[in-house]
C-alpha cells in the first residue's frame, strides 16, 4: 500500500466531505507513492518523533500539526535553512512520508482531539465530543485540587494555571490545542492548550485573573499544545486500524518540549 492509498482510504472513511482547499491536510514530505511499511500517528512531527518513528519501522507519519514550524508549512524562506535541510534529508533518506490531518480531524464526529483531551484530564462523558465545546460537570473540587489531578493524570511538567486555587469549581469547558474556548457564564474552568495571552479575540488570562480578583470562582488551565492535543492521536491510530489492516499502525507521542 502507498501513502496515497492510505490517504484515499482515510478520505473515504472520514465521514465528512473532503475539502481539497485545506492547505493544512496535505502531504508535507516524501513521495506519496512510496510503499508504506507502517504508520505512526502523532500530534507534532518533531525531528525527535520522526527519528523514533523511523527506528520503529514506521515510515509514514500522520501528524496533526505542521512539519516546518509554521502553520501553512510554507518553505520558500527555509530552503537554505540548515535545520530544514537536515530534517528533510533525514526523512527522504529513510523513504519517509509525512501527511497532515488537522482540519478534517476537527470536523469529524467525534473529534478525537477533544475526546482524548477530556479523557486525559479525567473528565468523563466526552466519548462523543466534537470541536464545538460543551460544559462537562465534575464532582465539586477546588481549582488547585483539580490542577493537581490534571498534573498527575497527564504527567505534564509545565502547564500553567490562572485563578484562585481555593475557588470551588465543577463545570469544565475544554478545547484542545490553540482552540482554547472563551470563558462563559456556564463554566468555572476553561482548559486549553495554548492561546495568545493578550490583545486577542478574547483574553481568557486577564478575564480569569480579574474574576479571581473580584472574588468570582473562575479558573484557567493551559496545558500546552502537545500535552493537550496529543491523546486523541492514539484514538486516531485505532480508528485508522478499523479500515487498514496488515501493516503496523502506532501512536508515537511527541515529547512535551518544556522544562521549568
Amino acid at each position, binding site marked *: 500500500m502507498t501513502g496515497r492509498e492510505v490517504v484515499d482510504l482515510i478520505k473515504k472513511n472520514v465521514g465528512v466531505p473532503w475539502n481539497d482547499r485545506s492547505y493544512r491536510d496535505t502531504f508535507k514530505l516524501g513521495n506519496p507513492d512510496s510503499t508504506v511499511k507502517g504508520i505512526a500517528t502523532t500530534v507534532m512531527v518533531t*525531528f525527535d518523533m520522526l527519528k523514533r518513528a523511523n527506528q520503529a519501522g514506521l515510515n509514514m507519519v500522520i501528524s496533526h500539526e*505542521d512539519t516546518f514550524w509554521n502553520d501553512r508549512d510554507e518553505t520558500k524562506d527555509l530552503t537554505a535553512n540548515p535545520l530544514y535541510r537536515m*530534517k528533510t534529508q533525514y526523512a527522504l533518506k529513510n523513504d519517509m512520508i509525512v501527511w497532515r490531518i488537522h482540519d478534517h480531524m476537527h470536523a469529524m464526529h467525534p473529534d478525537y482531539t477533544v475526546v482524548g483531551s477530556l479523557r486525559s484530564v479525567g473528565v468523563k462523558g466526552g466519548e462523543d465530543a466534537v470541536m464545538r465545546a460543551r460544559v462537562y460537570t465534575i464532582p465539586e473540587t477546588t481549582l488547585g485540587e483539580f490542577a493537581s489531578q490534571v498534573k498527575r493524570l497527564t504527567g505534564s511538567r509545565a502547564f500553567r494555571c*490562572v485563578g484562585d486555587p481555593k475557588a470551588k469549581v465543577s463545570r469544565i469547558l475544554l478545547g484542545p490545542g490553540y482552540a482554547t474556548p472563551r470563558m462563559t457564564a456556564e463554566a468555572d474552568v476553561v482548559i486549553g492548550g495554548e492561546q495568545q495571552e*493578550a490583545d486577542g479575540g478574547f483574553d481568557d488570562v486577564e478575564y480569569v485573573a480579574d*474574576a479571581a480578583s*473580584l472574588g468570582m470562582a473562575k479558573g484557567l488551565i493551559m496545558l500546552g499544545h502537545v500535552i493537550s492535543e496529543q491523546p486523541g492521536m492514539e484514538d486516531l491510530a485505532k480508528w485508522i486500524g478499523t479500515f487498514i489492516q496488515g501493516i503496523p499502525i502506532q501512536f508515537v507521542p511527541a515529547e512535551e518540549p518544556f522544562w521549568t
Partner: protein
Amino acid sequence: MHGATALTVQDVTRRIQTTLGGEWPPAGPDGFKAGDPNTPVKGIAATAMATMDVLKQASKAGTNLVITYEPTFFGRHDGPAPPPASGVAVDDPVYKAKKEFIEKAGLVIFRLRDHWQARKENDMVAGLAESLGWTKYRVAPDDVLYDIPAATAEDIVALIRKRLNLRGGLRAVGDRKARVRRVLLHPGVMAPATMWQRYAETDLIVAGEVREWENTHYAADIYTAGEKRGLVTIGRVASEDPGMRACAAWLEMLVKEVPARWITAGDLYWRAA
C-alpha cells in the same frame, strides 16, 4: 500651584500624544478606554496590563490615570463590540464589575502601545534588559543582543525568574546545561520568521510568547539536531512589564506636576502542586 485651572487627564494625554507624535486614529488601539478625560489628574500609573489588581493598587496609591500597554477589557476590542466582533458581552459580570470599580474610584484608562513601542529608544527591550541587570552587556549597535557573563541555561533561567519575580509563567526549551553567553531579548510576541533568521547568532532567546506549534517546535527540533540553543518564554505580560517601568520613568520627566509610578501587572500564572 500650577495655575488657575487644574491639570486634567486630557491635558496629560495631549502632552503624551504631542511628544510621541504620529497619527492617533480613533479606531487604533491607543486612546481612552474608560473614565472621564476631564478628570483633574492626581497621579499617573503605567502598567503592562490594567488588571483588576493593578487598578486596585492604582486607586490605593492615589493615582487616577492608568496608562496600559495591553487591553483592559479582555481582548483587542477592549470592551463590548457588535457582531461579528467577539468582544466581551455588555452584561458580562466581570466586565460590569471592573467598569463599576473604575467609575467609583474615579480612574481613567488610556492605552498606549503602538506609539510607545514605535519610539526609537526601544524601551520595551531596554526596560527588560534593565530589569535583568544586563543593560551594560548590550552588543551595540544591535538593540536586542546581550553578551552576558557565561552560565548554564538553567542558571540563567533561575536568574530570570528571580529578577522578574516570575511564578508559573516561565517555560524553557533546549539543553539545561548548555553554556549561554549571547542572549536575544524579544518582549511581546515572536514570529517564526524572526526566529529562523536570528536563532543561529544566539545561545538563548528570551521572548514573551510564541506559538507552540511554530517557534517552540523549531526550538525543540534545533535541540534534537544537537545545537546548544535555548528558548525561554516568560509570558507576554511579564515580558512587557519592565518596558512600562521605563514608560513610568519617561512620564515622570514629561509630567512634572503630578507623580508617575510603575505598577507591575506581575506573572498571572501559577503551577499545580
